[in-house]
């Protein structure tokens, strides 16, 4: 045991992690600063003081994670997964409701959000299942089993209701794709999204016309490469059917608040007072930052608390306002670096388990990054998910810390196979 070679930890990833966490804390401090600050950065009555405590405890967590025997994660992944499912299910009985969502366990003043940890469990379980010697992910039946592993926690999270967190489970497409499932799933998903957005923008009639036109155009390509006429017909009918049902669902099944969120992002509605208020205020905060921002704790939008949820989901608007293009660009750059580094790390794993887990980490962090910042800068609908390492919240910070450092631990042991 003692003689086993270790490759060491990937210090670049750890550095980026700490940069993001510290910069995040600085922005949480600014965003949650009252009009009469108590003077102490660690005042536990204040949001920033608590976050400082969570960050301190994360370091403890990191030490524990790195100390644990690598085999533990693989061996106990099923147990961890089942525990997570129990915790999610238990919310229906013991959950505490905060601002409309029953997503927390409350023990005294301490609150835990199990959905933040369920992602890790799912990633481990998926890695374990797919890397199993008996699993062939190219088989539809095995794909279906993998899908169940992913969908179970997501289905438990949706009714909390927390559709944003559930949506993150789409991230697991990336490891599965890397392991060999067909790109057709992605094409189908993208076509679905395209038809969805297209229907909302120009209506089902025009979408149908466009689909038929495209199908007709396909006759221009060589006969051998073209799909057969029955398949083509099926695709056309499916697309048109989807478009009309999207139209029906959007107008008859969606509630007005859901419709509003889409309409605002699609530019069909300008409503800066009601539902669009968040996005509008967030854009004002970011846009007024200019090149270099207004300076730390000097953001007027931030001080006036114009942006709702600014220390949690909208934390990036503080970065934009107080640090300007330089600061917000740097954050985007750091995230991209982190993600690319993680892909690089995942690719150098010899163990399939490690690689799948690594890709899961990349997928989860990427989805959070894309949806959160996209929302804050007004190019995505309002979906309430946190920005990893940045947003306030103990569960979130710990969840992402554990997620990331398990992978760093796995990576450090990659040579032992």
């Amino acid at each position, binding site marked *: 045991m003692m003689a086993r070679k270790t490759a060491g930890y990937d210090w670049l990833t750890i550095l980026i992690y700490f940069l993001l966490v510290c910069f995040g804390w600085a922005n949480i401090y600014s965003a949650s600063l009252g*009009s009469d600050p108590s003077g102490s950065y660690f005042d536990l009555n204040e949001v920033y003081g608590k976050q400082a405590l969570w960050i301190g405890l994360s370091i403890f967590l990191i030490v524990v994670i790195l100390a644990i025997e690598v085999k533990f994660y693989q061996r106990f992944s099923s147990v961890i997964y089942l525990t997570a499912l129990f915790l999610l299910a238990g919310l229906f009985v013991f959950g505490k409701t905060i601002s409309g969502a029953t997503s927390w366990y409350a023990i005294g003043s301490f609150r835990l959000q199990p959905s933040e940890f369920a992602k890790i469990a799912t990633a481990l379980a998926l890695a374990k299942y797919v890397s199993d010697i008996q699993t062939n992910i190219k088989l539809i039946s095995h794909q279906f089993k993998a899908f169940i592993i992913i969908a179970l926690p997501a289905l438990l999270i949706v009714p909390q209701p927390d559709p944003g967190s559930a949506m993150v489970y789409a991230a697991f497409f*990336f490891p599965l*794709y*890397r392991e*060999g499932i067909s*790109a057709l799933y992605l094409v189908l998903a993208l076509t679905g999204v395209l038809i969805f957005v297209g229907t909302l923008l120009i209506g089902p009639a025009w979408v149908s016309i466009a689909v038929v036109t495209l199908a007709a155009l396909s006759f221009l390509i060589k006969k051998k490469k073209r799909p057969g006429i029955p398949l083509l017909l099926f695709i056309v009918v499916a697309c048109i059917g989807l478009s009309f049902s999207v139209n029906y669902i959007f107008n008859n099944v969606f509630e007005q608040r859901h419709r509003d969120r889409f309409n605002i992002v699609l530019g069909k509605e300008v409503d800066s007072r009601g539902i669009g208020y968040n996005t509008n*205020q967030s*854009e*004002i*905060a*970011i*846009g*007024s*930052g*200019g*090149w270099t921002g207004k300076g730390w704790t*000097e953001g*007027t*939008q931030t*001080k*006036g*608390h*114009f942006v709702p949820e600014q220390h949690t989901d909208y934390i990036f608007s503080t970065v*934009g*306002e107080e640090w*300007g*293009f330089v600061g*917000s*660009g740097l954050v*985007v*750059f750091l*995230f*991209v670096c982190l*993600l*690319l580094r993680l*892909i690089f790390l995942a*690719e150098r794993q010899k163990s399939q388990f490690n690689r799948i887990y690594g*890709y899961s980490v*990349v*997928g989860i962090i*990427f989805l959070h*990054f*894309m949806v959160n*910042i*996209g929302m804050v*800068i*007004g*190019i995505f609908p309002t979906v309430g998910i946190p920005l990893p390492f940045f947003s306030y919240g103990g569960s979130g910070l710990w969840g992402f810390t554990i997620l990331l450092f398990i992978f760093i631990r796995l990576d450090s042991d990659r040579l032992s196979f």
Partner: protein
Amino acid sequence: MRRILLYVIILTTGFVFLGRLFYLQVVDDSFAVRSNDNAVKVIYDYPQRGYIYDRDGELMVSNQPSYDVMVIPRNLKPFDTTELCEIVSLERKELERRLDKAKIYSPFLPSVIVPQLTKSEYAFLQEKMRNYEGFYIQKRSLRDYHVDHSANVLGFIAEVAPATVKKNPYYNSGDLIGRKGVESVYEDTLRGVKGVKYIQKDKLNRDIGPYKDGIYDTLPERGKDVTISVDSDLQAYGEYLMTNKRGGIIAIEPSSGEILSMVTAPTYDPADLVGRKRSSNFSKMWLDSTARPLYDRSILAQYPPGSPFKTMNALIALQEGVVDTDDTFSCHHGYSYGRGRKMGCHAHSSPVNMNQGIAQSCNSYFAQVYRKIIEKYPTPQEGMDAWNKHVRSFGLGDYLGNDLSTGRPGKIPTSEYYNQIYDYPTYRWYATATLSNAIGQGEVLLTPIQLANMTATIANKGWYYTPHMIKEIDGKPIKDERFTKKHHTTIDTKNFEPVIEGMHQVYKNGTASSMQVEGIEIAGKTGTAENFVKVDGRRMQLTDHSIFVAFAPVDDPKIAIAVFVENGYWGGRYGGKIATLMIEKYLKGKITRKDLEDFVMDPKNSLEDEYEKPYSGEPFLINDGKKNGWL
């Protein structure tokens, strides 16, 4: 391929985000403005407006506090509406209407509920204020007038016009600005500089402290006091004498160009444009399109100057050397000049020399003298322009460039003007075509201030300072080049002597001999000017204007004055008396010729019925048969 997909997606997302951030933060600069609108409130600290004093240091205008009842609808608690309505004398329904309006405007921001409480209302309400949660009283500063005259001199303050706000970044909508008169011309001096405080707001519009710890805040700077050249007592007396009349008076101190008095009639009490009654008073005066109390006749009305202008022609004739003081001209109830045309004159001895010509205001004399001036030159055009140049050197026919808020150039015709109306060279014109200029009729138009300036220039024997209003700013005498530079006329000093002597004779033996005041030697000139008006497109002749110019004492002039009384029959009837009374008032401080004052102030001699005539729709007589020739 499978390895690359995620790289591509991540990099694409990164670039899209950077692009969007670049657009929001660097390209589109509207967000900074919107952010400040959002989060930074600007509060202005308005300084005290400067006081206005008259030339003797008498306080004319200061400030008074005014109290507005404000409301913040969100803070309202149920209260005794009946009691509040009683205190501020407001209908209950009206109060409810205003509260609704305030609520619609903003539940969080203050709105005015009752503007400008009276002092007693304020005193009463102040005690009860604790019963009205959500209401508070805001103090503002209004003008406090210590005189009930000089409205046209002082001007007034009013809310700044949107166009001014756009042009001048100092002003914000709702600020007060001086309009007309001293308030307008010395606005920058009087207003001071307002202080600015930047306040950081939160999303509910509450103040949460100074913006950037107040590094951009400034303190207000008090407005400077202004001392004007007007003599408050003389001004009050002038306005009193002009009761029931229309017209303007300007009195100037010849040695300095300072305006001693600037009277327009009808006028109003400056206090009428302050307080709650302001807007109804203002519209009432604004809508009075015949009396036009807001129209300053003393500097805006362009009248034919009539006979006082003869002194100008006498001066030009002497300067051009076309007559001698002893040259005589005959007058047979007028002067006939070709094709049966005749300029009438009244009865007096004939022939007359210059002295008698001025004293008797002989039309015939000046018609012939004027012809000699124009005909001295080979063409009437050259003659006309030579004449024009002399007249202009007195500051006539153009804006004076003074420190009054407004003015008119008057009209002094040029050869070009006559070429145009006579369609030269198709048709020719001669001196006789312009003969009315000889007696200050026809094409010549002057404002009272121009005529007064001409009189002051004669009193100075050939020079003048631009008439002005300002005397001191914050107790320091002004040194404005516009008002300390002597303007010299084209007439030599020696040529003024005979004209002044003639004007003295007017007072001693001539057309103003009935107005002599013991101990004061006056040089003056009466004027009676024909005038016309257009009513509903019909040109009608009205009763003549009564005009008088004078300065005194003759050998050391302290005051030069011009009086226009619209439709006042003839020069001596009102103009002469008013001018003499004003001179006595200024030089002696008291009135000995009470009989003159009694005549002018007698309600029987009111001119109001005269002003009604053209609007009665009936045919009417002018000069009521009292026409007495060209006095």
